[in-house]
């Protein structure tokens, strides 16, 4: 099935309570699949087509504030519109999942794939000092697998998490093993696991979920609390995949669809006798800074391959700390590099420079 369809099926199967979304190419199959599947008749999952991305993210804010596992999906321009809701959720510590099937920008851009929202996703995206957890799937299987993981992380840390996909992963068809069925949590389970949620104050003091404080002292302490939470996440939740790094002299760092393309480029380069490995960040935030630094200390060079102008490149450079040369190869979205092109760029920029 398509990556977008895998998201929809995985959502139903992982105990998602509600989906709120607005159509936008290239991810409309998510809402379409949910509408066809009618989960409200089986698991009781609510599905609403909202009037805008602004409304859908605020529905996610409302639903998440009651302790429910709720999500939305969109593509780049729509996710730009959602930044208001995402920063409110970060401030009020509301869990929820946002799937971004990226397309090219800026502005209306193109409907074709891009990785141009790396900065937007990994730097918070809205106003204020905050981060969101960012998972980058590189296959249809990971689209399905990351759905439950995104909810688990969002609830573990009471914050939004983003599945940062792109038009390639969303539209391509691959075999996929759907996750085992997990029931939606009961109201009693929600009350137990989310004592902070607004569910009607039964047998407890009332809960207030807000991102507002006019007391500067309180506001600073709240921000320090958020930063401490982010520190723990950087420590505990870094995820990555290493491919052929054991004997490698060189490294390609790539995520999502660029990692799939780069994996093929590595095969081509190895056929020519070049020992190249790959580090694929799965969490873009928290970023595998320490792992890349470790690898950099024994590499002759690193190529950062992306479908953007060099956004993750900044995080790679910060990780490498000058331990080895770092080059970048990127296409600007819509246009996607071929494995041969990545292999050629690798040789030009790191070997025959």
């Amino acid at each position, binding site marked *: 099935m398509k990556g977008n369809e895998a998201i929809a099926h995985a959502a139903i199967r992982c105990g998602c*309570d*509600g989906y*709120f979304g607005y159509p936008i190419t290239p991810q409309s199959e998510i809402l379409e699949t949910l509408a066809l599947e009618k989960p409200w008749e089986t698991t009781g999952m*609510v599905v*609403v087509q*909202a*009037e*805008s991305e*602004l*409304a*859908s993210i*605020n*529905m*996610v*804010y*409302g*639903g998440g*504030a*009651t302790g*429910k596992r*709720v999500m939305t999906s969109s593509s780049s321009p729509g996710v730009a519109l959602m930044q*208001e*809701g995402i920063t*409110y959720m970060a401030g*009020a510590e509301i869990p929820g999942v946002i799937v971004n099937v990226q397309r090219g920008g800026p502005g209306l851009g193109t409907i074709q794939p891009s990785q141009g929202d790396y900065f937007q996703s990994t730097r918070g995206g809205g106003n204020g000092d905050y981060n969101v957890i960012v998972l980058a799937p590189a296959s249809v299987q990971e689209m399905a697998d990351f759905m439950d993981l995104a909810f688990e992380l969002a609830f573990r840390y009471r914050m939004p998490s983003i599945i940062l996909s792109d038009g390639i992963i969303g539209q391509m068809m691959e075999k996929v093993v759907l996750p085992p069925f997990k029931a939606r949590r009961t109201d009693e389970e929600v009350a137990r696991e989310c004592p902070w949620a*607004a*569910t*009607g*104050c*039964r*047998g407890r*003091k*009332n*809960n*207030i*979920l*807000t*991102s*507002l404080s006019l007391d500067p002292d309180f506001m600073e302490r709240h921000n320090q609390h958020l930063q401490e939470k982010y520190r723990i996440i950087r420590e505990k939740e870094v995820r990555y995949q290493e491919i052929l790094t054991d004997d490698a002299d060189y490294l390609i760092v790539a995520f999502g669809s660029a990692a799939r393309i780069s994996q093929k480029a590595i095969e081509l380069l190895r056929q020519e006798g070049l020992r190249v490995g790959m580090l694929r960040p799965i969490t873009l935030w928290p970023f595998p800074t320490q792992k890349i630094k470790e690898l950099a200390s024994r590499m002759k060079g690193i190529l950062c391959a992306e479908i953007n102008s060099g956004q993750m490149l900044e995080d790679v450079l910060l990780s490498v700390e000058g331990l080895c040369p770092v080059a970048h190869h990127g296409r600007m979205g819509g246009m996607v590099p071929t494995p041969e092109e990545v292999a050629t760029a690798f040789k030009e920029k790191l070997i025959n420079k």
Partner: protein
Amino acid sequence: MTREEIIEAKNLVYSKPALMNDNPMHYCPGCSHGVVHKLIAEVIEEMGLIDRTVGISPVGCAVFAYNYLDIDWIEAAHGRAPALACAVKRLHPDQLVFTYQGDGDLACIGTAETIHSLNRGDDIAIIFINNAIYGMTGGQMAPTTLLGMKTSTCPYGRQPDLHGFPLKITEIAAQLEGSCYVTRQAVHTVAAINRTRRAIRQAFQNCMEHRGTSLVEVVSTCSSGWKMTPTEANQWMEQHMFPFYPLGDLKNTVTK
């Protein structure tokens, strides 16, 4: 009658609703918010829904509504309260879900969320405080500011060619298929307060019975923003606001 006799429990004719706590209110003297807060507290208690209520507070003067009523609250982004309420009610169909919004929040920045919530017929109650001005930010022009009315961003009075016309969003709400009860009330007299209490009760009942969206507009004063004493503000409201925003039910598909 001695003082001691007067304050005996059996002679009590009025008390503060238990839902209202003792936090000092930030509202200005003469402001309508306090009265409407109290009515909401009374109705929730009357209906026995304290442990089944989620309120959505707005951005504007009522942003701190959650400081005064001891129910569960979610503080929305400016204008988005109906979107939050839509999700909360659909995920918790047995709960009383209401939004509390001012004119800038509901009829300007949140117009789309308001209209689409009413048009979907979300089973929520919307309490709409219309004082024709942005109170919290210091008295700027609102979507409902009357023609000729002076504010800090139309200091020479609202003119249609410069500022457009005041928006009668409640009239629009009444046209939408999803709304079941649309009414316009005020809280400037005891009789008006009692009518508003009945309207809020009706709206909350509709929410619990899944009848569709209810909108209760309360035409209100903003003494500070209007730069009047509370008494003058009430008089001004009767003379100028009521002719343009006439009180009464605009739609009721639920009761006769």
